[in-house]
């Protein structure tokens, strides 16, 4: 008994506390950045607790006119889009065989998993009756709703991402045999993940097809599902570029030592792909505009904002990606990626908040509490990412020992 307890203590010390005692660990994490994060999380969790005790009206500015606010527009729509790096990179490496991108697959899958996980947590805050979240899966399916497909796909894909990440967890735990079995599933899981992502990334756009009168005509288009799918791939690639640069800097001690040129080459390759996608996306958006035929709307205030999004956050990053990739300027590719990420966030917010219920008397503006909850979820996502990367072999991509060793 004492022996088991000692072993458990040693295990926690080695695997969780990074070889420190509880006191030493507490001292090590007592930094200004962590204190700020703790403050944000404490305030955010208080608001979330209040939301569950007092109801949505207690903390949000949502109404019967605008039942979807920041938690859907940002946490769900943007979170899911920015998490698309998982299926984008996994399919590039495991299906298309682009092996040189393998070093960034694990962080991309982890980002994807956490992005979806926190999007679902955000959704729980937003649902009027959150305890009914399993209904479409287990009880009352509601097969006629677009939400049925989104619900199922997100449920399945979160499971797939979790399974795709298990080899890393098993390596951390030192369970080599089961780790190899988990790795054997990678190709199947990746293929399944691509199918599910194609379905639900586009379905998030389809949600708005059921409310044509509520979306501003500049943003409403029958092509919305296509826009959401293509922009998710752009967001996924761009997030991988941004996240790998930040991780390379922040987790230098955890990353497999790798020349800067290797990461730069990967970045430029991803930037080239993003340039091509954004080029196509720009023309698709023009098609959407032509289909609606609302050119005159471009002369309004909404039109000016639409042009800022289309020219400044779609065309500009496209050209910057192309120029930087051609010149071999990885730094400029990263700037373009940050711009493209911002572009996808703005596009999703424009469809779901700025241009949604644009003609009602009382416009929705998110409350400070809603913003705080979203900031809290992002902070929790970053802290979880850091916790995992500091412990598990995410960045160094050490292979499992071959069978028989």
């Amino acid at each position, binding site marked *: 008994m004492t022996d088991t307890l000692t072993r458990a203590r040693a295990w926690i010390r080695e695997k969780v506390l990074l070889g420190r005692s509880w006191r030493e660990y507490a001292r090590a994490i007592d930094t200004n950045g962590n204190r700020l994060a703790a403050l944000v999380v404490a305030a955010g969790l208080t608001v979330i607790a209040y939301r569950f005790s007092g109801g949505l009206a207690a903390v949000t500015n949502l109404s019967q006119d605008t039942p979807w606010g920041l938690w859907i527009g940002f946490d769900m729509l943007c979170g899911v889009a920015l998490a698309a790096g998982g299926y984008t990179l996994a399919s590039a490496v495991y299906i298309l065989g682009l092996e040189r991108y393998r070093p960034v697959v694990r962080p991309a899958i982890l980002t994807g998993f956490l992005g979806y996980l926190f999007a679902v947590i955000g959704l729980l805050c937003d649902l009027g009756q959150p305890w009914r979240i399993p209904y479409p899966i287990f009880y009352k399916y509601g097969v006629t709703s677009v939400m049925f497909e989104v619900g199922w796909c997100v449920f399945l894909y979160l499971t797939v991402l979790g399974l795709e990440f298990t080899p890393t967890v098993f390596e951390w735990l030192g369970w080599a045999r089961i780790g190899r079995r988990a790795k054997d599933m990678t190709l199947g899981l990746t293929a399944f993940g691509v199918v599910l992502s194609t379905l639900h990334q586009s379905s998030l756009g389809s949600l708005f097809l059921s409310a044509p*009168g509520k979306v501003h005509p500049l943003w409403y288009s029958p092509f919305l599902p296509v826009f959401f799918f293509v922009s998710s791939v752009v967001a996924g690639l761009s997030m991988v570029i941004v996240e790998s640069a930040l991780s390379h800097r922040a987790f230098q001690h955890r990353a497999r030592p790798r*020349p800067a040129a290797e990461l730069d080459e990967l970045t430029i390759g991803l930037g080239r792909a993003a340039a091509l996608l954004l*080029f196509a996306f720009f023309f698709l958006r023009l098609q959407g505009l*032509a289909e609606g*035929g609302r050119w005159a709307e471009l002369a309004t205030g909404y039109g000016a904002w639409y042009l800022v999004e289309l020219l400044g956050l779609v065309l500009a990053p496209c050209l910057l990606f192309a120029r930087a990739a051609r*010149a071999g*300027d990885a730094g400029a590719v990263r700037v373009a990626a940050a711009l493209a990420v911002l572009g996808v966030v703005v596009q999703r917010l424009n469809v779901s908040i700025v241009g949604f219920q644009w003609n009602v008397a009382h416009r929705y503006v998110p409350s400070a509490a809603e913003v705080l909850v979203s900031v809290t979820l992002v902070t929790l996502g970053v802290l979880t990412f850091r916790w995992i990367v500091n412990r598990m072999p995410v960045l160094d991509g050490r292979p499992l020992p071959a069978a028989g060793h």
Partner: protein
Amino acid sequence: MDPHAFVSPVEAKAIEYLIAVAYLVLFVPFWRYLDGGTARARAAVRARVPARPPAGWFVVPDGISFHPGHTWARVDGEGLATVGADEFAFKLVAPERMVLPPTGDEVRQGEPAWLFGADGHDVALLAPVSGTVTELNTEALRAPEAAARDPYGRGWLMKVRAPRLAADRKQLLDGPVARRWIEAVTEALRARAGAPAALALEDGGAPVDGLARAVDGPEWPAVAREFLLS
């Protein structure tokens, strides 16, 4: 105006076709522009990061575990380690003096443990393991330049009683991983703006003492701290 009013399908379709044609016409030069840069981009990236350093610039002996802050530890027995600064740290700073903690002091892995001083500036080095200092290499303290010539042998700096040596070593680099790491660090130093041409030569010559001063002149302590992670 009703924004969702009926739109002439003929007009809309005509514009859609024009956009589709424009896309196809523009895609060709766009692709050629992007693809034409492939070789150029690769060359540009590689030019910025100079070729691999000549073999043997920095030795990575077996049996030595490296902290990314350019200090090392060698296991001498159960819970006992010898620690020192690696060859890169000695070459980077070329210390004129070294300030080590007195015996009996506690050092913590990843926290500043001792100082290298040169030109009136001090830079801290991080302890590779946690524990209690039990012995100092007074010979190395007296003659840092001699310690620099044999950093993993006679140039050891301290003996440390390290109760969590096994856990500490998991945070350290050794073998092929350490070799790749030292190559990457060397490349990073050579790629710095202002690195004199002498550093980028591939003549197989040994790197100069005081690399940080050679790269950034009076700003060298900042460069040294950046590489020593202190």
